[in-house]
């Protein structure tokens, strides 16, 4: 657990006035607020720090404790004891700072904050506390293989200790985000749960490359089949198929297998196409007889001598 310099988070000096704190906080909140930074986890994290810094520095009592024990937060219990003794004589005093932002999510405080001030919010009153707020949105990523992404299947995730079972439809894209309503953080004051955003990461496949719903692969054929034509076996997502190679097939020439590509997302029975590019293996070590025959072919070729 590391010490957090709340003054640095807000870009202020230790002598900053309440007005300066408020101004710095509002400026940063307008930049980093999660409602205007969707899909930006970096901004979300920074906003939580800014919120936490404001929570401490805008409350005179917390600020006093932080200024005195910030770096030595391990000893802050002594401060608490002293404070309680003082309160016995002077009576309890409430915080007079302004309220913070909810940021569209449950307030998430660092372990440094919780160690110094206790749980979220530190017991400070908020004027909007009656309102039920939606829980924090959670972003998660899920790795799957290309073949997994090609079939509709059920998957169980554990999020916040809860098991979430979802159906991943065939055809999901790399980088695609699905939203599960209510599976994020718990809401505050009876508010609804936040949402869970899952980003799918599909690993490259050793045989197939995907572009949209189409798949691309390579098939190697020997020189003789490319020249004379014949059959070869090629991979598709659903298994091997026999391909007819026409006589005179050129290197890089493509063959389209209609409907043998990737399943179309949420469209049952619809598939993209598979494009197979031919590579031609040129024989490297020829016997004397083979060389002789190739020489003969060369001499027969109409291009010979041009």
């Amino acid at each position, binding site marked *: 657990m590391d010490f957090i310099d709340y003054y640095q988070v807000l870009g202020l000096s230790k002598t900053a006035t309440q007005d300066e704190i408020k101004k710095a906080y509002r400026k940063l909140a307008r930049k980093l607020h999660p409602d*205007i930074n969707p899909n930006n986890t970096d901004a979300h994290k920074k906003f939580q720090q800014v919120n936490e810094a404001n929570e401490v520095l805008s409350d005179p009592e917390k600020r006093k404790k932080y200024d005195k024990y910030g770096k030595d937060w391990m000893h802050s219990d002594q401060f608490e004891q002293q404070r309680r003794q003082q309160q016995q004589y002077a009576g309890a005093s409430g915080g007079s700072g302004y309220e913070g932002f909810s*940021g569209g999510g449950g307030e998430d405080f660092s372990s440094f904050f919780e160690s110094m001030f206790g749980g979220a919010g530190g017991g400070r009153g908020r004027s909007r506390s009656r*309102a039920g707020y939606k829980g924090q949105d959670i972003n998660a990523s899920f790795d799957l293989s290309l073949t997994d992404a090609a079939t509709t299947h059920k998957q169980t995730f554990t999020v916040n200790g809860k098991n979430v079972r979802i159906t991943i439809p065939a055809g999901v*894209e790399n980088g695609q985000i699905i939203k599960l309503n209510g599976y994020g953080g718990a809401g505050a004051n009876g508010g*609804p749960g936040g*949402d869970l955003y899952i980003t799918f990461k599909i690993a490259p496949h050793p045989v197939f490359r995907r572009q949209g719903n189409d798949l691309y692969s390579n098939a190697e054929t020997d020189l003789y089949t490319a020249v004379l034509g014949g059959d070869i076996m090629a991979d598709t997502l659903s298994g091997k198929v026999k391909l007819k190679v026409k006589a005179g097939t050129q290197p890089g020439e493509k063959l389209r297998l209609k409907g043998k590509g990737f399943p179309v997302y949420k469209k049952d029975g619809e598939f993209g196409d598979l494009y197979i590019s031919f590579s031609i293996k040129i024989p490297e070590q020829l016997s004397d007889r083979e060389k002789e025959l190739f020489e003969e072919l060369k001499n027969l070729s109409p291009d010979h001598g041009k």
Partner: protein
Amino acid sequence: MENKNLIPALVICREHNVEINFVKLLHENELLVLVKENEEYFLEEEQLPHFEHLIRLHVELEVNVPGIEVIENLLEQHELDHARIVALKNRLSFFENED
């Protein structure tokens, strides 16, 4: 009419400490869909997260309705650009993985 859970706009205004006029303004500017029945406004339950998002922009960031409209348009554009970036990254990775 489809039977959806409706929440009286006045109730959610009270819960969130906002004026009913603000909610009506959101509705007039097509930022929020309200249902009007017997001169009273209601919000469909499924609109609640969106409504709370608009409330946060207004209350926490002190943005007025025209400002919210600008933000919503920019966020929409941002979503489209984000989807476009994902598609372009996938295309790029397709060519990068080409032998």
